């Protein structure tokens, strides 16, 4: 997949040096053989080996620069004896050799200190840095020997090669917001909870929120799973946020808030949901003027009016929101609906505009006689709006007026449908049924184990492998549903099993409400037709997924209106990147990425997590901590937060299980 001169990446060994080009072996990995559109790449060196793309590489300088990057990497290191001194010794000795002042004894000391670092360092960065250096010393021994024997500098020493490095971790890489997870976990381990929170907020302003309701894709890339069970990453995030709130501390910003620039530049953001708030935060903290236009009287978007109180107490979410709105250059305009006319005005007035209005139209279930205007037919978004506006803000009226003692059927399988059924229970519904096309395993994968089990405990009836064929009504309201059942039939050719309708297994459900929660779509009415904004096949705004500018210059999009209905953390990750691009665009009119961002994308493509890697140096079998929840009886008739969070003992034990899998990688260009 990648063309290399030489590679030891992830246990492969390719050495094409001196071979005719047609006999060259390719690397199996998506290595960064070109850096970006205008720049090639000479070599890539990292935790798992080294790959050389340019035969003329200076291996000695490459090794010494990698050690230097490790030295400069100052976010976490210096915190164990082998890493602190060993890293410095590595660099000093390698640079000595590269300068042409080294000896063969230095090489043996290098190997000795490398062994100690690999065996005893605190985090993976110290354990892995020596590996590619030893690889280079072994396979490019000639270059090292020349420097030593001739006492001459390495072949391009001090030349014009640039080295661009980036620190990551498997969890950080997998997190759409690239949160520095090991750092915030270390903050908990150190019991300096403010540091933990500041680490989270480097790339994730919604710490309360994503410490509670994130589906934590990071945990699927946790190396601890290779040993026993993944770290409970998400729940540890909440601890810093709770600490700040509980002690009424001043905002723990990750960087100093810059004074307002007052240079006439300003950015408009449409929508005050997770994406809009995130972009506002990272623009505002730099002193850039931001106006947010929000249609609703309340802030927070779908997390405010969609995610129920028992999962995400608004009091806590409001802290995340206030963090953003307290920035001196961020201003919010509520009850401000942006339509096509207004968007044209905004576009003309602002230096850049970010669309972050989400997906707020409920899709239909596609059954016969489906009439959204029929009584009892209630779109999930509208239903959750009603529940949450009343429960959290006292706006409107209680949904129990509609749902008490009623039979509610929800069609779904994702987070939104879980919120619908669990809210229905809390609003006093007599019976709540969830219809889902696929099986239990899939619903758990689409949501979380906890979410599904808590719903079952609360009395939701799940009917898997089912779909509505026809809806019946009495002219005023829905009366019953005809439901088909399906089964998974294995493909005789060995392909994916197919869902097949079971003949004669249809059944009927009498019900009062049908709440479709199959998916949502973006309400695109605000896009002026004449702009001809390019859309995806899902009817969301098309960008290249890296800089988040739409087909119209200066018009950006992030979050669900760009990606389609997805997670909060995805919206945060996109919006932060968009904010970064916008922060430069408004000055130079160019769409550009930083080296950090380019490397982030390279690593993401390469894949940082290796599920087959064998873990050494850690005690297996330490149980993953699970926070205490309110019992069913304590929770199902109210909106109290279900998850009580970790005890201190659990939090520390869990943080101590984290292996700090920091990796450093570097490209030579």
């Amino acid at each position, binding site marked *: 997949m990648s063309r290399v001169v030489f590679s030891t990446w992830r246990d492969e060994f390719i050495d094409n040096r001196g071979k005719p080009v047609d006999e060259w072996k390719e690397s199996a990995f998506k290595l960064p053989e070109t850096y970006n559109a205008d720049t090639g790449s000479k070599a890539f060196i990292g935790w798992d080996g080294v790959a050389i793309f340019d035969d003329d590489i200076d291996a000695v300088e490459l090794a010494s620069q990698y050690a230097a990057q490790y030295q400069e990497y100052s976010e976490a290191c210096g915190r*164990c004896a082998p890493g602190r001194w060993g890293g410095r*010794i590595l660099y000093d000795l390698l640079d000595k050799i590269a300068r042409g002042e080294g000896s063969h004894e230095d090489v043996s000391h290098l190997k000795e200190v490398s062994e100690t670092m690999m065996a005893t360092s605190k985090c993976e960065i110290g354990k892995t840095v020596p590996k590619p250096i030893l690889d280079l010393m072994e396979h490019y021994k000639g270059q090292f020997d020349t420097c030593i024997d001739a006492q001459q500098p390495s072949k391009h020493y001090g030349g014009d090669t640039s080295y661009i490095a980036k620190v990551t971790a498997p969890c950080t890489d997998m997190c759409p917001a690239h949160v520095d997870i090991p750092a915030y976990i270390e903050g908990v381990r150190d019991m300096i909870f403010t540091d933990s929170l500041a680490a989270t907020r480097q790339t994730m302003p919604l710490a309360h929120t994503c410490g509670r309701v994130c589906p934590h894709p990071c945990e699927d890339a946790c190396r601890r799973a290779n040993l026993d069970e993944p770290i409970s990453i998400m729940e540890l995030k909440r601890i810093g946020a709770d600490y700040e709130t509980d*002690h009424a*501390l001043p905002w723990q910003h990750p960087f100093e808030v810059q004074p307002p620039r007052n240079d006439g530049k300003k950015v408009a953001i449409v929508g005050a949901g997770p994406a809009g708030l995130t972009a506002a935060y990272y623009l505002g903290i730099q002193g850039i003027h931001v106006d947010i236009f929000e249609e609703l009287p309340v802030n927070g978007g779908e997390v405010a009016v969609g995610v129920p109180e028992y999962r995400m107490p608004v009091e806590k979410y409001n802290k995340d929101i206030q963090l953003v709105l307290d920035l001196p250059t961020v201003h919010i305009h509520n009850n401000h609906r942006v339509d096509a006319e207004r968007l044209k005005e905004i576009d003309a007035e602002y230096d850049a505009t970010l669309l972050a209005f989400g997906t707020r139209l409920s899709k239909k279930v596609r059954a016969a006689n489906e009439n959204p205007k029929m009584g009892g037919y209630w779109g999930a978004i509208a239903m959750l709006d009603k529940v949450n506006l009343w429960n959290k803000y006292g706006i409107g009226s209680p949904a129990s007026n509609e749902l008490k003692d009623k039979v509610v059927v929800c069609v779904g399988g994702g987070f939104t449908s879980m919120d619908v059924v669990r809210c229905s229970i809390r609003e006093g519904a007599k019976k709540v049924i969830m219809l889902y096309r696929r099986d239990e395993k899939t619903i758990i994968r689409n949501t979380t184990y906890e979410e599904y089990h808590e719903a079952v405990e609360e009395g939701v009836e799940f009917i898997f492998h089912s779909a509505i064929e026809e809806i019946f009504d009495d002219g005023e309201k829905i009366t019953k549903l005809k439901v088909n059942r399906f089964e998974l039939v294995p493909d005789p050719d060995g392909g994916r099993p197919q869902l097949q309708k079971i003949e004669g297994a249809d059944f009927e459900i009498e019900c009062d409400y049908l709440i479709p929660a199959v998916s949502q779509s973006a309400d695109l009415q605000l896009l002026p037709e004449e702009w001809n904004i390019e859309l995806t096949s899902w009817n969301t705004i098309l960008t290249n997924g890296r800089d988040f500018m739409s087909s119209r210059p200066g018009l950006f999009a992030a979050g669900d209106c760009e990606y389609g209905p997805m997670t909060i953390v995805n919206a945060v990750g996109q919006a932060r990147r968009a904010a970064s691009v916008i922060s430069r665009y408004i000055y130079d009119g160019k769409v550009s990425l930083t080296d950090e961002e380019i490397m982030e994308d390279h690593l993401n493509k390469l894949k940082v997590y290796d599920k087959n890697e064998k873990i050494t140096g850690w005690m297996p079998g330490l149980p993953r901590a699970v926070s205490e929840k309110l019992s069913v009886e304590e929770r199902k008739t109210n909106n109290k937060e279900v998850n*009580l969070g970790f005890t201190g003992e659990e939090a520390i034990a869990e943080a101590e299980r984290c292996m700090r899998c920091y990796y450093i990688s570097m490209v030579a260009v």
Partner: protein
Amino acid sequence: MGATHNSINTGKPITVTIDGKVCKSTFGKTILEIARENDIYIPTMCYLTKVQPIGSCRMCVVNVEGVDGMILSCQEKAVDGAVITTNNEALFTERQNIMKLYDVNHPLECGVCDKSGECDLQNKTMEFDVDQQNFTARDQHRPVENWGYVSYDPALCIMCEKCVRVSTEITGDEALKVKFGGYGSTIINVKKEKNYASLGDAAAVCPVGALVSTHFKYTSNAWELNKIPSACPHCGGGCQMYYEVKRDRIYRVTNEYEFTNLCGAGRYGFDYANEGVSKDAEAFAKAVEAFKKAESVIVAPQISNEEALILQKLKEKYGFKLVSHEARAYQRFMRAYSEVTGKHLYGGDLKRLSESQAIIVFGSRVNNDAPTVKYHINMASKWHRARVAYMHPMEDAEMQHIVTQFIKYEVGSEEGVAALLAHTLLEHAELPQSVRGILDDLDIGNLSAECNVGEEELDALKRSLIKKHGFSLVVGSDLYMHPRAEQIAKLVALLETYAGFNVICVPPAGNAMGLSLICDLDDAAEGYTVGYDVKADFTLSALGNGDLDMPALNQQEGTLTTVDKRVVPMHVALPYGGYVLNDIANALGLRAKYTIDYTVQLPEEKGFVKTAFDDLPEYFDAVGTEHRGYLLNAQQVESGCELDEIEEIEAFDGAIVYRCDPVDQFSPFTAKAKLLEDEPVLLGSSQFAAAAKLKEGEHIRFEVDGVVFERLFKIDTDMKGTIALNPTFDMGLSSSLLSSYRFSRLVYEKINIGNNDE
């Protein structure tokens, strides 16, 4: 309440094998802890028993059968059945290499280093035979920093991070942090301007000479000092300490830092001895006569249990009134308390406090009153994410990072607050009919208004306790001297008996607790009075300005009674040439060769144990269990709880002063300590200044309990409200004359001081 939530299975019995030895323990303990329980040695450089594992040195790596790589024994919990090897050639090599790394560029200045002779780096360098250096790195220039009480030399620092952990987990000053940065990483003090004396506790754990007490620098070689084990007499905490002495001078105070803590007063307030005293036979004869004719004896609480017993015996013999105001108030409070609990002591202790998930502090400015108690609250906050409700009329900015709910009440309304607390926290408790009746009849709306404690605040308090395990209640001196102290005591005691609270009634400073247990105290002195460290008609004084000199507590043998209900020994650190109380007692007809002959006679009915002074143990075992003196036995007392109606709450309007010493000051003895430099000023907010019509820099004169204070007024911008802090530590022989409620209205006259000098 269901079973205690415990998702990580701590406490399950396990068996592991370490170096062939079968060790039984429980899950949750680390490999290193189990090794130490079994006397198996694993070398460490950064391990500190009293904090959570740090894991910076990596010396403690071990091998576990079936597990690849080296395992960090200080942090990794042992799993059942693990077979562990703590030493072999490969482990030795790695440990040796780590020592070589530590030695890279470590300045060779052992000859002038304070730590030399007791330095872990020296010891381990020798232990691992590091006699040559394979590694070198470019050195960096890093100047020494003077932070006040402590100084930091980054060149000597090995970045073990122990000091940061103490600052975070133990003392909670949170001044020290790690500044990350690879080889250039260093320890920084982010609160230099505060010059916390508690940083002495962080310096105490430094394994090398990097963080040291500034005053001790370059004064003595460690090995020339004689360690005298003792207990700190200042706050009533009775913390373990050593006086380190050479040629009749105390050079410094150290402690068993691996397991215990010592606040700034204990560590730096050691030079209060009554020096240069010789036997003045004439004064002694007058003292004996004074006792003979005394109608009253008034005593400050800075005396030993044995001295207290001598006074009690003299009282019994001569019939004088024996007065000690704070101890008396505490005695009355505890008597009322025990009427509810049926035990003569409160049930709480510091260890359980540090393990609590929810803590209420009521009626004490605890950071000033009892640093060791504050440390244990901080531990609970850090280790157990404890909810800490702080109930007091004044906020304390120093507690913000520990406190999760500040509940402010009106000055004087403590009885009402206690009733509200009992009502809130005993809602579902099974109570005696009479108590339930009184609680149910409370007019909560009215009480809440009178105390200015909102019902929503109480609701929030109750909510914060949901599903928590381990509740503690810390109460303090504001309550003991309250006019309604006995009623408050009973309300508070209900929480111990009926809601399972770990209650600590923090004793007032000194040995007030010992006095309150040993002596039959009277309320007020009358007639001809002998004072002991208190100004009276005839004054015995360890402060050196009385009619007859007495030894200070670091010049005496004897025992103290501590907040942890422990009786602990003190030894003589400095010589004393004069008469002691025992000499007077012998002249008055008692018979004991030494004061400590009374140790064995301390009253068993008050929980003291019949043990001779010389038989009191003084050590900590390998896992840190304290064997120091003994714990008082809780005695059953007659119970029968009669609650009164809640009295009308007296309103305190306008400017108020609160008797409260600066952190690390407790008495005229700490005031004498040269290292503890605190200015005795009246400290208030600008709001107080407005209410009192005072300006910063003005001098005023006011009176409390007949004691006249002349104070310079200063504004503290961290403070709020109309209450000012009025210290008493500088009041010498007058400070123990104070006997009323800690808050008082300020009525003053302005005086001119200092203007003439300018």
